[in-house]
């Protein structure tokens, strides 16, 4: 009888789960942990489970802490926070209000499932939004503590790249235009041996602000 080891496994499991439930209202969090603890105790008592492998099997059937936590957030109608930069976006990007989703052409349900009631005991840390799917991606890079959001933070690179590319293209085009302008002016200057006045007056204006833009953005 290795009850120490099995108890450790159970405690570790519950602890791992608890870590992932920090975004839930405290009562829901405690409720779930108590339910699971009772479940494990029940299973052990009623199936006469003693060995570590049997206990691990019970835990395995429960599902990993990640899976259980994801279900808890979905059922609570909350977004799952991102601990430690890991992507824990709910796997099921659909609002947690499945009842009558297929209700088709029938009359509206007389008692349609009320939206998940507001969490009673925690600051409104997340709205009634559905869990974020990929469409919710690319928030502005945020620096705060883990919060409810979309995708891993490495994502937003693409868009800036596009913008930078566009800006570089514009800058290059402007520089080219200025060079051509210079060429024309030089040609005009050579051709006419006189009237030098206008040329500098024209090109001095655009070259100043535009030329430095390219190196700065190109990094």
């Amino acid at each position: 009888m290795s009850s120490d080891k099995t108890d450790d496994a159970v405690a570790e499991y519950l602890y791992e789960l608890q870590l992932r439930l920090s975004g839930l209202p405290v009562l829901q969090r405690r409720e779930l942990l108590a339910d699971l603890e009772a479940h494990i105790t029940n299973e052990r008592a009623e199936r006469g489970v003693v060995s570590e492998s049997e206990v691990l099997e019970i835990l395995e059937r429960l599902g990993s802490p990640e899976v259980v936590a994801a279900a808890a957030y979905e059922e609570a109608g909350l977004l799952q926070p991102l601990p430690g930069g890991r992507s824990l976006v709910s796997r099921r990007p659909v609002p947690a209000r499945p009842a009558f989703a297929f209700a088709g052409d029938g009359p509206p349900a007389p008692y349609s499932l009320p939206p998940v009631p507001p969490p009673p005991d925690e600051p409104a840390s997340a709205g009634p939004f559905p869990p974020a799917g990929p469409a919710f991606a690319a928030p502005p890079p945020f620096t705060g503590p883990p919060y409810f959001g979309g995708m891993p933070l490495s994502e937003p690179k693409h868009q800036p790249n596009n913008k930078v590319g566009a800006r570089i293209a514009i800058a290059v085009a402007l520089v080219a235009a200025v060079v051509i302008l210079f060429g024309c002016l030089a040609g005009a200057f050579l051709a006419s041996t006189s009237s030098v006045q206008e040329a500098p007056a024209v090109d001095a204006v655009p070259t100043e602000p535009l030329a430095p833009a390219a190196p700065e953005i190109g990094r």
Partner: protein
Amino acid sequence: MTDVAQLSTSLRRGTLEFCVLAMVEHEDRYGTEIVRRFGEERNLAASEGTIYPLLSRLRRVGWLDSKWSESPTGPPRRYYALTDSGRSALEHFRTEWVSFRQTVDRLVGTGGA
């Protein structure tokens, strides 16, 4: 493989809760009992731990009641009972489900003619 899992997840969503309601329609059952019963259904196979958040939501919307009670053999058990609104929700689902199923059968060609 992923698609298969995704499909059963999608099918489960919106129906599993009524299976839960039906399970406590005639007698109160405790959590482990409900979970165990689902574990026996291969088509519903979900991680058992995900049933508890579902039970919690059904209780919060008032379709289930729960109360802890001592067990003769072991730790206390949390028994779930169907409320009146849960009962009418279940009845409504049954009606909806039959016509829904018939429509799908007809469109998908699974009518079993």
